[in-house]
């Protein structure tokens, strides 16, 4: 008799928990009381014990997934037994059809009402099996011939085939009666479509996972930028001795200012002199903006957000520092509003705290440029013929060549360097 392993309720106030890791693999022998998995709620992890002896026959939830309390995360059965809760008839072991209907969706990212509207899955991605369940349930009772809905332009066997191969039927042209999609339409679609992703999926023998809403947005924006914006890059190394001292002094006087805040302030000042980098390219026109609104890339779980510090041209360094802390907090806590991530006219991405020396960033359309900031570190430099250690930082500007040319970008970077090397300019 198989025993379900469920997400335990570790607190009266716990509604969902994250599976941290499996301590046993499918097929492993499990003794009652043995630790089989680790789950997490808030900042506490709990080692999960088996309530029955047997063999772990199924892991239904992957490490990192957040599921509701009570969700079946795995099944312990007798050795050699396949899972297949409750119902007694033989079933293919881990097919989607076997999921109990009450099982919640594994993802917290798309809190849509009920499971009946599976999140849109981009073409080429294979939907996760739990997510495809509702479709099965809904379509099963009605004979396919009577289907009139948009998504019902194919026989069940074709829909199943599409699902298995990760094809969005909405993208396939049907050649059957009334535009119905036939098996050969799928084959033609597959033959025509580039397929690096399916190659990877096949190689690993896994189903792939659907894009979260945020990954989907990042994929769309960066692909659009990469395909439409002719990027070019310029890097400059900036001596940071003075800036380091300013940061330390400000800190001593109670104002926490980061290097990134200095870069924002310096960029705002330099953009005032070189406004074509504070511009947008749209419909074959260049629009130069009066406001300097600087977007700051903030890494969050499974993605990034770019909250915008608005009106930087009129903000003191300290005001910028307060605003960046506020925005980053909101971004990470998931409470940021649409307004706070819109309206940027220039962006900064800083990977200095990760020890990245320098890198090139993808422009955030329709902006003209993005500044990629590396770490502040001691690097060898030649001064008066001697090699000495100097604290420096490298920044790389990615520019839209439709808006500016190399010399203009170089002048902007020269100004940025001058300001950061004389940071007192930012305090007056």
């Amino acid at each position, binding site marked *: 008799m198989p025993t379900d392993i469920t997400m335990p309720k*570790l607190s009266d106030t716990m509604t969902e928990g994250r599976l941290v890791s499996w301590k046993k693999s499918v097929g492993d022998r499990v003794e009652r009381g043995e630790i089989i998995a680790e789950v997490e709620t808030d900042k*506490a992890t709990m080692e999960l014990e088996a309530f029955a002896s047997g063999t772990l026959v199924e892991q239904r939830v992957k490490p990192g997934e957040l599921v509701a309390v009570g969700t079946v995360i795995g099944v312990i059965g007798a050795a050699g037994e396949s899972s297949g809760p409750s119902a007694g008839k033989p079933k293919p072991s881990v097919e989607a059809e076997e999921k109990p209907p009450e099982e919640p969706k594994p993802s917290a990212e798309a809190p849509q009402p009920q499971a009946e509207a599976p999140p849109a899955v981009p073409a080429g991605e294979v939907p996760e099996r739990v997510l495809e369940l509702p479709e099965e349930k809904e379509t099963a009772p009605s004979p396919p011939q009577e289907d009139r809905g948009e998504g019902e332009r194919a026989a069940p066997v074709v829909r199943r085939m599409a699902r298995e191969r990760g094809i969005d039927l909405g993208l396939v042209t049907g050649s059957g009666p009334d535009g119905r999609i036939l098996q050969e339409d799928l084959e033609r679609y597959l033959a025509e479509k580039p397929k690096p992703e399916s190659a990877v999926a096949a190689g690993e023998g896994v189903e792939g996972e659907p894009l979260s809403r945020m990954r989907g947005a990042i994929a769309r924006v960066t692909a659009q930028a990469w395909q439409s914006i002719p990027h070019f890059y310029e890097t400059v190394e900036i001596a940071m001795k003075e800036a380091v001292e300013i940061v330390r002094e400000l800190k001593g006087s109670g104002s926490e200012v980061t290097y990134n805040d200095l870069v924002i302030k310096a960029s705002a000042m330099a953009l005032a002199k070189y406004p074509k980098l504070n511009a947008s390219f749209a419909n074959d026109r260049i629009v130069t903006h009066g406001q300097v609104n600087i977007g700051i*890339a903030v*890494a969050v779980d499974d993605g990034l957000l770019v909250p915008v510090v608005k009106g930087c041209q009129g903000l003191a360094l300290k005001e910028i520092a307060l605003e960046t802390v506020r925005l980053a907090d909101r971004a990470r806590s998931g409470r940021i509003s649409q307004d706070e991530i819109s309206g940027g006219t220039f962006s900064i991405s800083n990977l200095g*705290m*990760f020890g990245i020396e320098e890198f090139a960033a993808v422009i955030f359309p329709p902006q003209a440029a993005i500044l990629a900031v590396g770490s502040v570190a001691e690097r060898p430099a030649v001064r008066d013929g001697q090699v000495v250690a100097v604290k420096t930082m490298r920044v790389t500007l990615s520019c839209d060549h439709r808006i500016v040319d190399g010399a203009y970008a170089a002048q902007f970077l020269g100004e940025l360097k001058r300001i950061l090397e004389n940071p007192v300019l930012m305090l007056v």
Partner: protein
Amino acid sequence: MMIRDLGDLKFEAALAIQENLTAEVAAGTAPETLLLVEHPPVYTIGRGGCRDNVLDSGIRVVETNRGGDVTFHGPGQLVGYPIIDLGRRGRDLHRYLRFLEELLIKVAAEFGVTARREPGRTGIWTDGGKLASIGVGVRRWVTMHGFALNVANDVTPFHSINPCGIVACPITSLSAILGRPIPLDDVRRSVAGRFPSLLDERLPFLETAEPAP
């Protein structure tokens, strides 16, 4: 319950003591214990974390089975590892986390620092940043790991971990907020004095263990 001051001890050594005690408390052969310790510099990574988020190669990195992400321990920071049998105190992890937060808020208040909870972000916060981190591991309902309260430590190593991204999550300490050095011993005494009674108040000890759910 017992309170043991381990003094200055390496993270791994303290972890071994925790592991043993957890097993003994679960078996009922040792009393619940609060371990207090100060660690030499070390980054530790919880289950929510990833080693890639640590870049300062000068400081050791240890992975542990507590909840939470990357954090730093070092001299001047009071670390507390309560080994508590939640199986006999209501089996509620959130209530335990809130108890730890309340304890640390009261300790901070004793030194004149106003600290608070931030909903959804376990730990203790002040206007100047995060004052204490909390990360707990539970095995057979017995707790491990616990809290790290910044008393007089150098907070710059935190700048090298910023697991979340661009703008550093500000970290502060009692000494930094008050502008004068606060002796670790004073804070240790405050924590040790408050812990047992507040624990019994918030998570009363039940004479018989509850059956497993």
